[in-house]
């Protein structure tokens, strides 16, 4: 009896871990810690002011920008370029991607072209864009649109391919017209994939904003960064970069909200 008592113990727990949990506040905390370290390093002189601006100085620059009203002067044209360019590129990309997803002939013809265009650094084509679309806004829209187009195409036809075939077959078996199958089964089924593709496409559009504003723009966040860079004004450079980062955060948040609202059906 004593013997069995000595051998009786709870089984060792071996499960747990390998799960993703959502932990709040840690993200902002890490962010704050990095900034605090930089601030400390630059203040003590451990980090030379040549290699890194002081975060507080960057913040001061941002504040100045806001107070002088220059922030809006730069932000307004940039947002316009981003919205127009990304809207053209993404909507064309969704249309072409859907066509590729639906028609084998389009797939055979267009997929190689898209694959060939995708890796071209759009910045390399800057001079060409100026010749094609002029030095004005049109060339900037075109550059951003071109850059968003290809990733959107790839994401969209991938999403269309991934629509559950049994649902399409179900639609056909109930005698739904081709157009009904596309509109009520294929497109809603592809929507989640298209949205996650848009996250990437719009991030690329923000990256290309700076490139687009190399094309003789006097105002714009990209122009502001380029100017600061050529003057080696790190504080202004980082202020501009921070603005781009925030634009990225806002877009990602907005897409998150759209997913929450329209994709509540997902398990």
């Amino acid at each position, binding site marked *: 009896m004593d013997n069995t008592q000595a051998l009786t113990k709870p089984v060792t727990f071996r499960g747990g871990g390998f799960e993703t949990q959502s932990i709040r506040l840690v993200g902002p905390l890490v962010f704050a810690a990095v900034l605090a370290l930089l601030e400390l390093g630059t203040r003590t002189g451990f980090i030379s002011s040549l290699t890194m601006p002081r975060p507080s100085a960057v913040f001061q620059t941002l504040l100045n920008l806001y107070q002088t009203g220059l922030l809006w002067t730069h932000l307004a044209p940039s947002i316009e370029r981003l919205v127009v360019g990304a809207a053209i590129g993404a909507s064309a990309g969704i249309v072409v991607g859907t066509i590729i997803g639906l028609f084998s002939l389009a797939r055979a013809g267009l997929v190689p072209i898209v694959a060939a265009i995708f890796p071209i650094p759009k910045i390399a084509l800057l001079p060409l864009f100026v010749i094609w679309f002029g030095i004005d806004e049109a060339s900037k829209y075109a550059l951003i649109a071109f850059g968003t187009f290809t990733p959107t195409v790839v994401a969209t036809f991938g999403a269309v391919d991934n629509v559950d075939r049994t649902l399409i*077959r*179900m*639609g056909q078996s*109930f005698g739904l017209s081709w157009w009904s199958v596309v509109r009520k089964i294929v497109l*809603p*089924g592809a929507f989640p994939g298209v949205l996650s593709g848009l996250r990437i496409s719009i991030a690329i559009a923000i990256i290309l904003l700076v490139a687009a504003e190399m094309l003789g723009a006097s105002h714009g966040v990209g122009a502001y960064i380029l100017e600061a860079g050529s003057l080696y004004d790190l504080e202004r450079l980082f202020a501009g970069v921070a603005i781009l980062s925030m634009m990225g955060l806002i877009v990602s948040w907005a897409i998150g909200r759209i997913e929450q609202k329209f994709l509540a*059906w*997902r*398990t």
Partner: protein
Amino acid sequence: MDLLLEGIGHSYGAVRVLKDISFEIPSGQIVCLIGPSGCGKSTLLRFIGGLERPTEGQVLQVGQPPTDSLNPLTYIFQHFALLPWRTVAGNVELVLEDHGLPPRDAKAIVNDVLARTRLSEFHDALPKQLSGGMKQRVAIARALAVRPAAMLMDEPLSALDSQTRELLMDDLVGLWTRKPFTAVYVTHNLAEAVRLGHTIVVLSRRPGRIHEIVKIDVPLEERQLGHHELEAKQNQLWELMRDEAMAADLELVDG
């Protein structure tokens, strides 16, 4: 409207999957198709509803489907095939939308079929909120909505647990006794076959041919668990299938 299969044969490339299949699906009766896995029973069902074409033979429709039938040959799928972004009612409406019904009629049909499948209170639920058994009831409601002349069921209960399966079988029997419908019911479950089938077509392993056609005369509503005649039939079917099933189990998938 009866259905008639005449000399159906099919091959995928060099692989023959079905050979010489002929039988009749009389109106108002349930015909069960059983056979070892890979014998082509689901393929045969796709031929019957016109989702695929056989390489030989044809499926004939004898007589006109009822005039009020919106989709004479209607499927019920093993994995339900519900649109996850539509509610229960929305999934039923989907199959009515292309028929240009006045909105009020469509609504009435939706409410009627949901009531018949005891789903009225789940009108606005999304598929992800439903259990497997309820999802399949939604799929049955959707099939009833188009007033089919024949229902083509592809292992409709195979994705469900055995308790849910019993309950749904009762539901199907109830639906049939209230209003007899024509159905082809593919299954690998002999208990389901003897419970629901007026005629049971036993297919042999690949290439699938008709091994035997078994009739059961016991009325559906009298068929209960442990009914001696049904057990005898089930044993008879198992004797017919046992060797085939064993041989099929030993085959390589790509044969």
